[in-house]
């Protein structure tokens, strides 16, 4: 018998899906099932009216051209997302949407693309792409494994904390050793791979938070993460 139903909302899956972002949604859906909950997956695309019933919001990365397509709509729903984030709504923002969840993105030629200010951070376009395997450590989630591929370099403000500290790779930028950002129940990261399959601790944090907000308590099920552990161990031994 189902312990409850969680609504997962994908932000702009048509344009923002470039590095296997579907994997994050699939992992949330399947782990909810393994924990005994049902999942309903819906999409918000440019021009749609923003739904009231989302319990968990997931957004991915896109190409520069894709980010232009969603820009106006994202600005329109920005206040709603800010309000939800401040209220403790769990969200996962990867790569392109991580950048746009910040205050602004300044491109190499000086153009400023406004973000929606869910997260206190800014991103500056770089000439070099930061590409490769990443290992980072987090007090909250342990070791995090993923793959980065971005030219924007992100710098955190005082209103957010880093998700993790990089031990291999670059993470947010080529200067400090921060990777990703945390604010209330928002998890933001440059890492794909996809992020959640090999980092089930983050997936279960998002699930637990969504369930607790909706039902008061979360009753986890038995989930076998042996394969994720093995995949993590192998990923950690690969070249940059």
């Amino acid at each position, binding site marked *: 018998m189902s312990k409850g139903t969680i609504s997962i909302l994908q932000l702009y*899956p*048509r*344009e923002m*899906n*470039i*590095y*296997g*972002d*579907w*994997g994050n949604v*699939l*992992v949330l859906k*399947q782990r909810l099932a393994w924990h005994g909950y049902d999942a309903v997956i819906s999409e918000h695309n440019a021009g749609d009216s923003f739904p009231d019933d989302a319990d968990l919001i997931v957004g991915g990365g896109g*190409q*520069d*051209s894709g980010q232009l397509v969603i820009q106006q709509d994202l600005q329109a729903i920005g206040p709603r997302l800010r309000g939800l984030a401040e209220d403790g709504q769990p969200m996962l923002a990867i790569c392109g949407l991580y950048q746009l969840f910040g205050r602004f993105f300044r491109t190499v030629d000086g153009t400023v693309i406004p973000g929606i200010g869910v997260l206190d951070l800014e991103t500056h376009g770089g000439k070099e*792409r930061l*590409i*490769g*395997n990443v290992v980072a450590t987090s007090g909250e989630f342990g070791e995090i494994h993923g*793959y980065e*591929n971005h*030219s924007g370099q992100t710098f955190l403000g005082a209103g957010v904390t880093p998700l993790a500290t990089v031990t291999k790779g670059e993470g947010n930028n080529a200067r400090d050793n921060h990777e990703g950002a945390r604010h209330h129940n928002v998890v933001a990261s440059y890492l*794909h*791979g*996809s992020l959640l*399959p*090999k980092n089930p601790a983050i997936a279960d944090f998002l699930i637990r938070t969504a369930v607790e907000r909706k039902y008061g308590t979360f009753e986890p099920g038995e989930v076998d993460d042996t*394969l*994720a552990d*093995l*995949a993590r*161990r*192998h*990923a950690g031994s*690969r*070249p940059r």
Partner: protein
Amino acid sequence: MNPLSVLVGKAVRRASRLRGGGSALPGLVVERLDPGFMGRALSTLEHGVMVVSGTNGKTTTTKMVVELLEGQGLRVFTNRTGSNFTRGVAAALLGEVDWRGRLNADIAVLELDEAHAVHFVNLVRPKYSLLLNVLRDQLDRFGEIDATTRLLGKIAAATTGTVILNREDPRVAGLAPTVRDAGVVYFGLDPSLRSTFPNDDELRGATGVPAPSDLPADVVLEQVEGNGAVFGVGGKSVPADLRLRGVYNIFNAAAALAAARTALGGAADDDALFASLSAVEPAFGRGESVTVDGQPLELVLVKNPSGFRLGLKSFDPAGHATLIAINDNYADGRDMSWLWDVDFDSLRAAGVDLVTGVRAYDMALRLKYDDVEVRGIEPEIPAALKAFVAGSPGQPKRIFCTYTAMLAVRRELSKITTVEVVS
């Protein structure tokens, strides 16, 4: 002419083949010694040079174009090893030129990786270019799909005769305005087949930019039924039976027909073209079939999400033992995200016997999240192949493999069966 660099290059080529080593090293040596070698050798060809590029299908399509043109009596030079970097072309040239650096051929048909094709066309302007598709692949190398599209645009711009474009891929068809000095010819699909070949925007259910599909196409793939197909050529519908496996190869055949017809000008003998097409065998690792223990074993190369999807769609898993081999070496792409853009539902009923390769556990994890049973995991390819063959006696077998995993699998297979040697 520089006979010395040719002789040195040929010597290195012989030496590295004796060692069983890489196919591109002698090309590297001759590039260093004599940077003008390739341009000189290719500039004398009567019908010029054709470059074949795009994300998927380069090797098979190049092989088809070569055999179609040979069937019309042309002597064709090509880079057969799948070493599609500039130095791979130089290495292949070394095997073919005489000691004065002259090539005994009428036309060169060259498969080139998108980035190396740009390097190549800066050295040698092609008369023809055949641009197949742009799909997400090796984003760790190219950054963005749109960046890959710009690379193909440079090939189109450098082409002097005719650019042959895929009408159904909006990124490729959109290159037409960038063609400067050449004509444009299209190949395409009947509208009823379009959903079989999603472009990159459609991979995740988006409708994307609609392709400008009312453009007139020289060759249209009209129907596919198993290995049989109907092609629309010059207003006629022509049925053909192919030895190639997989729907994607059949669309590549339309591309190859359009390219060969273009290169032949008005002189194409369409009946002979179709006779040649029906005789084309799969390129190595691309739906290639060998015999193991009296049973067929198929190798299906999977390099990116669309290729893997089309591979799964083309080959029915029922009754077959399945092995999946995933490596993450440079030539495969280091980022494993692409596995999450493939749906593996079609393997759920039969399950997967074994997964192998450096990223075997990533693959097993991916299958777990699609509820596909994995009966074994062995990261070492030689051990996995042994177990796979021993574990499925009397059963046809199929191996889906990334590029370097395919090379490793073929190496192991050559110890137990006859595998065509490609050099």
